[in-house]
């Protein structure tokens, strides 16, 4: 996507053209398995980028490499122009204060109460203490629609939707400039998914954050995205094909040139179902007595 096209999908009022996050030829391998191959991506200030793609295509790894949780095998991850893998421990800590990460299963600390979870970043960075701390925590929880009486509860006592909202409150409590969401609506009912979508929209409107959202949920993608990027698993790509199949506004997803984009958007198994059938047939052909292995 060129600079003008990126600017076209920025929310109104965003004037900075320099990218907040930039990936330059990022390659990520685990052993012999290539997850990301020479991936380049720019995320300008204020943009809400939604990354879609089937399971195993490297979406979460992409997100984790942006915050330095995973070091790419090759390539650079730039944050505000700085190569994050050249920063020292202190600089990295400072940089991470500018991020908010909402994990797939919220990743709340089991050993702490909800209040302590949300207070953790404030306490750890010595930003607030005493009454002020609990006032900030209470406000952060109120922002995501949770009352004060959840504060003494343990994460295990909460529903999935409430845990996600606590995770969101914890990520927002330091007023980050970049929000990263890893499958924020996965496992939630449609109503709660929409609540989370609304909270993401509200966060962008109120706090003017840049967001990168990983999701399978096309409703989320259509509702919150300024720009959608679709990744495809490296192992399934054709020769010399790029891993990004689609990069553009959400409105263009249905009319994308690549048929695989439409297939994903519409949730059609297509050739994948045929591959699965073939694999089953191959297994029976290679091992004729396969059925005998299982107790009847």
């Amino acid at each position, binding site marked *: 996507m060129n600079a003008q096209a990126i600017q076209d999908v920025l929310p109104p009022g965003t004037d900075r053209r320099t990218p907040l996050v930039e990936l330059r030829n990022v390659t990520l391998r685990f*052993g*012999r*398995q290539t997850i990301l191959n020479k991936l380049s991506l720019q995320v300008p200030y204020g943009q809400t980028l939604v990354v879609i793609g089937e399971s*195993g295509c490297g979406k979460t790894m992409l997100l*984790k490499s942006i*915050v*330095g*949780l995973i070091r790419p095998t090759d390539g650079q991850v730039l944050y505000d122009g700085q190569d994050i893998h050249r920063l020292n*421990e202190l600089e*990295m*800590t*400072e940089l*991470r*204060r500018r*991020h908010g*990460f909402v*994990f*797939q*299963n919220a*990743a*709340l*600390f*089991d*050993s702490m109460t909800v209040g302590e979870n949300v207070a*953790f*970043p404030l306490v*750890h*960075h010595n930003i607030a203490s005493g009454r002020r701390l609990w006032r900030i925590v209470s406000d952060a929880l109120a922002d995501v629609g949770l009352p004060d009486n959840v504060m003494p509860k343990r994460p295990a006592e909460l529903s999935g939707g409430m845990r996600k909202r606590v995770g969101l409150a*914890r990520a927002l409590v*330091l007023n980050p400039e970049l929000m990263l969401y890893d499958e924020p609506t996965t496992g939630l009912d449609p109503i709660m998914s929409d609540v989370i979508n609304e909270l993401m929209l509200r966060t962008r409107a109120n706090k003017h954050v840049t967001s990168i959202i990983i999701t399978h949920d096309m409703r989320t993608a259509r509702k919150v995205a300024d720009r959608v990027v679709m990744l495809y*698993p490296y*192992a*399934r790509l054709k020769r010399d094909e790029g891993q990004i199949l689609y990069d553009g506004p959400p409105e263009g997803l249905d009319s994308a040139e690549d048929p695989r984009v439409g297939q994903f958007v519409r949730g059609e198994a297509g050739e994948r179902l045929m591959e699965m059938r073939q694999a089953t047939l191959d297994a029976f052909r290679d091992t004729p007595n396969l059925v005998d292995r299982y107790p009847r």
Partner: protein
Amino acid sequence: MSSVSTTPPPPPWASRLPSPLYQWIYDWGEMVVSALTTVGDMAIFAGQMFVWLATRLPCRGTILPNFYNVGVLSLPVVALTGTFIGMVLAVQSYAQFHDLGLESRLGAVINMSLVRELGPVLAATMLAGRVGSAMAAVLGTMRVTEQIDALISMGANPIHYLVVPRFLACIMLIPALTIMADFMGIVGGYFYSVVILGIDHFQYLNNSRQFVGGWDFFMGIFKSFFFGGTIAIVSCYRGFNCQAGAEGVGRAATAAFVFSFVLILGIDLILNILLDAVYMAIWPHTAKLI
């Protein structure tokens, strides 16, 4: 889609070897490389922990719960097992010493064994079983549920926040647990020998006082620091490197205990040799039991 780890195609020189032999060499090579990598990883992990320990201590709120868990909650089980071990030593040794007419020396043997060897090793074993496995399971669960990633993403260092308090708790409280195991073992051994077996009270205590000295106590407590440190580092490392899923957490907890226990015995042997050499250098003419 998912890649399955298989043996790569053999290099040209291997074509002269029969296939099973190549596979055997490959498997052994892989095992050796994996073992060396683990040792190296663990050394780096321990190094990072020591750097944090030297530069910035964690806050009291993270240290105290670990001290409570390692020290207070381990005390009853260490005391109980210490008592039984003292009594078992008396039961096992009595017949042989009685045949030689040396049952009055039983106090020296039991108490020497306890303070030099069994007390520290027993306390360390209980700690590895009760605390080490739990540490690996807790940290492993934190790893697989992305709680460690969440810590990092919020600018906290997981080694500083999770490992240093556990290391401090183990290393500072294992001497107390060792003293408790020693004390309860001595009481148990005395009770069985004097009250049940009827060995003379004065002879028992006098022999103990004659042969068990400050060096023996020092030796046991000195060794316990190493045992505590080993348990904390191995258990935390296993937890941090836990594989995904419930099975991964279970394996981490088991591996934490097994590796800690093996290392405790190995370190015990090395420290015993070293400390005995030191002792003989300082006090070459020492009292003999017989």
